[in-house]
């Protein structure tokens, strides 16, 4: 599993709000470092790493939610919540893909532990059935993920999110 990218430019003695603007875009960029790999469904590791980065972004957004909860800016709060829901959505579908990969690995490992490899699997109809079912589920989930990703991208997901992240400073300037 890929480590979290080191965030730069953090100022411990500056406000929480100001630092939200520094940290959140870097967590979003971390997600996009995995984008070049998503068109290849065999890049299991990279898809898994993208899921972990998305989860990190989600947790970071939850941590900084308070920086966007300016009472006079209900719209910004709602948009923030909507984006969080989209991120959870991506995390879930990538999670389903990863689950399928884990199940397939466990089934393969179990067969190899029983010995005889391919010859053994022929006499394990339950295992054969679950492998086929899981492969099919994974394939459907992968297509769903790509559709979702493309749909979000076409709607300007990244740019809108970056604008939202920078909005916290505007809020402070305008309302402090």
């Amino acid at each position, binding site marked *: 599993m890929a480590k*979290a990218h*080191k*965030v730069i430019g*953090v*100022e*411990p*003695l*500056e*406000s*929480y*709000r*100001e*630092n*939200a603007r520094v*940290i959140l875009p870097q*967590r979003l960029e971390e997600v996009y470092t995995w984008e070049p790999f998503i068109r290849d469904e065999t890049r299991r590791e990279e898809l898994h790493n993208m899921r972990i980065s998305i*989860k*990190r972004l989600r*947790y*970071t957004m*939850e*941590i900084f939610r*308070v*920086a966007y*909860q300016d009472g006079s800016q209900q719209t910004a709060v709602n948009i923030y919540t909507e984006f969080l829901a989209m991120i*959870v959505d991506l995390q*879930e579908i990538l*999670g*389903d893909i*990863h*689950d*399928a990969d*884990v*199940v397939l690995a*466990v*089934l393969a490992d*179990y067969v190899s*532990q029983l010995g005889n490899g391919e010859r053994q699997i022929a006499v*394990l*109809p*339950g*295992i054969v*059935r*679950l492998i086929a079912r899981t492969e099919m*589920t994974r394939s459907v989930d992968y297509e769903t993920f790509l559709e979702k990703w493309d749909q979000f991208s076409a709607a300007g997901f990244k740019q809108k999110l970056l604008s939202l992240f920078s909005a*916290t400073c505007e809020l*402070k300037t305008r309302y*402090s």
Partner: protein
Amino acid sequence: MIRGDSQKLDGKMVTEPEVKGMLPDETLEACARQIIVNYFHEMMSYKEGAKEGVDIEFVHEMRVTSRRLRAAMDNFADCFPKKPFKKYYKMVRAITRTMGAVRDLDVLIAHFRNELTSLTEVEQTDIRGLIEHLQREHKEARQPMLMLFEELEEADFETEFLEFFVGEDF
């Protein structure tokens, strides 16, 4: 589907821990301390249940909260002296990892049990064998987790961690 580290199992959602009284115009360092301490308390509150091993949700909750705690620590590393921070970070990572091994098996066992209903008698025999195999692995996977808990208790990790992150007033 099955997810070892997800937010849901049987429809239950793990909600984000609420950090009360945090003001966004306070310094990052002050807020970081509040968040880390809050998440840490939340994580440790599941320890006894995880040790008991009766309800698998305790392991799940503890693991998810440890991940949230790590995400917070990743973001706030620059607020703290490097060397001790690294020590505490590694400990939290060890908690996530040992819990992960147990949780993954919990959900795999649950997943294959669910699959049983859709299989024929003959097919079920294979999967029952697999479930038994995973149950043995699960028993083994609990040992490093229990040993880690013991180590943490012996080293008074909880007090040390809180002394470091709460700061002077602890």
